[in-house]
């Protein structure tokens, strides 16, 4: 779960990490008062997308009038398809240097990793590898002072800035660990005359650990369908094509999409309904796909824990209760295959046994039905 910048900064504040003085506003009118209080300000759209600056979603204002004007403009914007509903008005920092700091998970090392660079404020992808210090943290030790000293040495940082780092980094690490973060990124980390200040905040919380953090807000950046899929515990991603795809297992679902593309078709979605779903959940998954009005429905079942008869029964049930008025390409093999085929046979559906055949057939159907 990605957090808006203003929420990330609230968490920073709670962890004693310096952040600029700021006000969250929900209408342009509020910008006047905020700017009157804060002086020179930065006006920042609160949307969950990168590159807000380049897209015009961040503006500076020297007085309340200008602040209001810019806020008005920003509230009317859409960034990467996302509406601006909240805006952060912040004191403009006096920045001597822009740095980069993040904590994230190193999958290969299987542990947290600190990323620090003296080149901040730019896209992190643009930071030269050799200008980025990566320090994997032994999770049983946590981030100890000596590690920060070593990071400083590798960066060539000494004196006051080193002291700042020794104070700053462990706080971010604590937040990262205690809140089950996947990412806690500060870019830029501003070096000001008063010390280090988090000029931005990008915090992502592990969805699988959200249950441990009832105090955190729940951010919904998903579409209505994705939310519905989430409720059903389905792995679902909306795509641009017209062939609705469902399969059991993440890898095989990806492979099915790849194969659709390989044969010239366009998948409408990714839907992995997992292993061991019952008739009820499987029916719901099929209904969800039908709701997206695709041209063709492609079901690819390689039954292991998933039972073919359960999938067939769910299909028949939806067909009878809601109707399925679009062409279907069905592949069905594995556990209880015969029972499944028998059920489908009764409603005139003949499932194939090869994934390749099923996908090619679905692509053909999608071309025909155009």
């Amino acid at each position, binding site marked *: 779960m990605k957090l808006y910048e203003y929420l990330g900064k609230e968490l920073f504040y709670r962890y004693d990490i310096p952040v600029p003085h700021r006000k969250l506003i929900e209408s342009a009118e509020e910008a006047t008062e905020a700017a009157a209080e804060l002086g020179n300000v930065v006006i920042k759209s609160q949307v969950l997308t990168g590159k807000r600056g380049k897209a015009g979603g961040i503006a500076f204002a020297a007085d309340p009038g200008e602040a209001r004007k810019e806020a008005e403009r920003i509230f009317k914007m859409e960034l990467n398809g996302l509406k601006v509903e909240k805006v952060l008005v912040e004191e403009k920092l006096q920045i001597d240097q822009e740095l980069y700091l993040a904590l994230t*998970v190193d999958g290969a090392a299987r542990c947290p990793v600190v990323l620090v660079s003296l080149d901040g404020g730019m896209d*992190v992808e643009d930071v030269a590898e050799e200008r980025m210090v990566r320090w994997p943290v032994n999770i049983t030790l946590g981030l100890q002072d000596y590690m920060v000293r070593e990071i400083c040495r590798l960066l060539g940082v000494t004196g006051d800035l080193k002291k700042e780092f020794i104070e700053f980094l462990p706080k971010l690490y604590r937040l990262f660990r205690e809140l089950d973060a996947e990412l806690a990124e500060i870019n830029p980390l501003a070096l000001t005359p008063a010390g280090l200040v988090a000029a931005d905040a990008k915090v992502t919380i592990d969805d699988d650990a959200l249950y441990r953090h009832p105090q955190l807000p729940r951010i919904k950046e998903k579409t209505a369908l994705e939310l519905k899929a989430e409720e059903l515990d389905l792995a679902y991603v909306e795509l641009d094509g017209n062939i609705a795809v469902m399969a059991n297992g993440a890898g*095989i679902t*990806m492979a099915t999409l790849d194969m659709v593309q390989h044969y010239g078709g366009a998948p409408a979605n*990714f839907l992995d309904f997992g292993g061991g779903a019952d008739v009820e959940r499987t029916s719901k998954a099929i209904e969800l796909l039908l709701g997206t009005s695709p041209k063709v429905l492609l079901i690819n079942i390689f039954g292991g824990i998933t039972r073919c008869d359960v999938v067939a029964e769910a299909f028949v049930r939806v067909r009878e209760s809601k109707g399925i008025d679009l062409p279907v390409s069905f592949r069905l093999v594995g556990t209880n295959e015969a029972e499944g085929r028998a059920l489908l046979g009764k409603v005139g559906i003949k499932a194939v046994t090869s994934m390749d055949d099923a996908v090619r057939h679905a692509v053909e159907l999608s071309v025909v039905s155009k």
Partner: protein
Amino acid sequence: MSIFIDKQTRVLVQGITGKQGSFHTGQMIAYGTKIVGGISPGKGGQTVEGVPVFDTVFEALEKQPVDASILFIPAPYAKDAALEALDAGVKIIVLIPEHIPLHDAMEIMAYARQKEAVIVGPNTFGLVSSGSCKIGIMPNRYFIPGPVGVVSRSGTLCYEIVGHLTDSDIGTTTVVGLGGDRVVGLNFIDVLEKFEEDPATKMIILVGEIGGSSEEEAAQYIANSMTKPVIAYLAGRSAPPGKRMGHAGAIIERGRGTFESKVKALSEAGVKVAELPMEIPLLVKAALAKA
């Protein structure tokens, strides 16, 4: 022959009294796995599929030695159960559950490293040494003995591919599921090393997917240290960046973990990357003919 496990391997089932745990205990026994006990706190003294149930892993270990444990435990409690098995001295632990919190997974891995134990998963189908020992949830019938080692990040896709082999009468030595999470225990290199050493394994199939860098690292290892042929299949060519494709680890972030980067790395390492799963049996036959 096989790697990691064989028919001597004594296996514990943690969470044996649950629906999944009891079902797969039966399946594993049917496959020939030596299940020596199950754990279910508060239900010690019962039996499941003829297997004695204990309250704690320590109790089970008082009764007999244990080599491996498989966990059917809800994600929020999986860390505790995994640490228990590690603390009690179990050296191979198969983590079936999905949705284990990332920080829990990191803690499990750190302790496993201390205990010099192998973690398979989380979010894995397990591993099977064909014809002798299955510690996982894969359908029994596809896993017949033969000369091919398989290592995969995903489950059903792996069955699909092994199914193609079975249809072509090609069997496997050991099939290992690494798991679909961002942080998993065994990685490609760990398994490739073992296959390289295993005389029965003549060639290897690597089933990867987008996200992370483990295929790239594997490619480097293959280029530097492997003599046996490796062929690969990678899922996720059509996946958009920034979206999790079912697996927590299957996501392209900040331009990293792309399909192209993995294909490039593997191809440069001399690995033949199949376009479609159905091509694999032919590629395998060609490789075996040369091997």
